[in-house]
């Protein structure tokens, strides 16, 4: 194998691998960066040069094989350069989020406290005239030029009672879902060495506002002051009244009842998924490219065998 052919083959393999990576390991920001585009463009330039060279030399089958790599690589480059960046659609459990760009609505399953603790909720995508598409945490779903997956995000299901034991309405004045006991921690806050998920909820029946910081068991183990139970996640809750007057702070381990600001609060912590949507090269371009490559290689091998002169049979003695 000459150096030119070896370089062409390596570039073709690289083009295939880089394009296929978007489907196999979807959602990486790298695919939309200049480094990825430069790598793929360099590989494609070598592949294109190999096609020209093979056509001039009359190696049409080899040129066909390289054309397959070119097709897949161009699709990968197009998806990386022009496809939208990976996005996450965050929805409150039990709600529907329209996604006009997909012509679909995402149904976020209704999740109670045990479901949040298990973190096994799924999201169903419904489109008119098409079967429903369920996205579970076990894998990704390919949908045309998009690949859908789940991103498990921290979540808390809040129950609260007043001092007479009456259940209280939970509201989220600063979030899109005003009426929801499920916190989805759309923001983060730096506190000391930690950068942790943060959310706010209220109990208007008792005129209280709570700020909640989410700490994983690993975070808790790194606390300067020893925390008794580091086996489960916990919230640090601060309470204030309607006028903003601070009413105290408490550590609320998952599932444990704590009293703060005259309200008994139980936070069940776990995860709830967001729907991630990443652009990928259309499957037909990868499949078509691979088919061309296999066809070209097979054709090239057969024609090479035909061209090889047969060994001269020795005359009988």
């Amino acid at each position, binding site marked *: 194998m000459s150096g030119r052919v070896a370089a062409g083959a390596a570039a073709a393999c690289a083009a295939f691998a880089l394009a296929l990576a978007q489907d196999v390991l979807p959602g990486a920001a790298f695919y939309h960066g200049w480094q990825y585009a430069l790598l793929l463009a360099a590989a494609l330039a070598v592949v294109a040069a190999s096609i020209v060279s093979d056509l001039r030399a009359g190696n049409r089958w080899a040129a066909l094989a390289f054309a397959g790599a070119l097709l897949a690589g161009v699709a990968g480059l197009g998806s990386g350069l022009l496809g939208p960046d990976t996005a996450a659609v965050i929805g409150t459990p039990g709600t529907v989020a329209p996604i006009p760009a997909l012509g679909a609505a995402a149904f976020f399953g209704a999740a109670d406290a045990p479901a949040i603790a298990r973190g096994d909720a799924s999201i169903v995508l419904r489109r008119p005239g098409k079967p429903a598409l369920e996205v579970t945490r076990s894998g990704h779903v390919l949908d045309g030029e998009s690949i859908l997956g789940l991103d498990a995000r921290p979540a808390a299901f809040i129950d609260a009672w007043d001092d007479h034991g009456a259940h209280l309405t939970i509201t989220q004045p600063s979030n899109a879902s005003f009426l929801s*006991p499920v916190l989805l921690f759309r923001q983060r806050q730096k506190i000391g060495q930690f950068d942790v998920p943060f959310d706010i909820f209220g109990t208007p029946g008792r005129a209280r506002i709570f700020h909640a910081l989410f700490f994983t068991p690993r975070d808790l183990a790194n606390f300067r002051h020893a925390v008794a139970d580091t086996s489960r996640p916990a919230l640090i809750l601060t309470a204030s009244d309607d006028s903003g007057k601070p009413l105290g702070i408490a550590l609320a381990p998952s599932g444990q009842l704590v009293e703060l600001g005259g309200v008994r609060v139980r936070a069940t912590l776990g995860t709830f998924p967001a729907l991630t949507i990443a652009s990928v090269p259309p499957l037909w371009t990868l499949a078509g490219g691979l088919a061309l490559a296999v066809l070209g290689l097979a054709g090239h091998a057969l024609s090479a065998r035909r061209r090889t002169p047969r060994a001269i049979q020795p005359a009988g003695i």
Partner: protein
Amino acid sequence: MSLALLAGGCYSAPDPAAVAAGGPATLAGAPAQSFDLQRTDGEVDSLARHRGSVVLLNLWATWCPPCREELPVLEQFARAYAGRVVVLGVDQGESASVARDFARARGVTYPMLVDLNEQYGRAYQGLGLPTTVIVDRDGHVVRGIDGALTLAQMRAAVAPVLAKR
């Protein structure tokens, strides 16, 4: 590179960031979600159990001042439209005893669901309380309205649905 740009230009990959804003008004035409819940009288009820009737679903809570003002108006509407419109109250997140005592003290007679987990509030994307949702006989949302309504506004909200046979 130009070949890549040419091919890329043909892409119609969606922009996932383009997600519409929520709120009860955006649900018009959508199938109305329903959850089985206990009523303040202990019976199990849901929106779906009233399929075939026009339903005025009212999300409220005892701590909400506009809800408290709206309650007698809703009772008046429920009596005036008895047999034509089902009024279904859904208390958001409070104990059954709290909702029952409050409603009873104000002479409320229409059925009242107790939604401890605020499932209806989430499903109907309540931006605040009260939230009113008009559901047609086929179980589709006709209108979602944020804020307290007057009797005239309630009448106007159900009139087009009642006109359909």
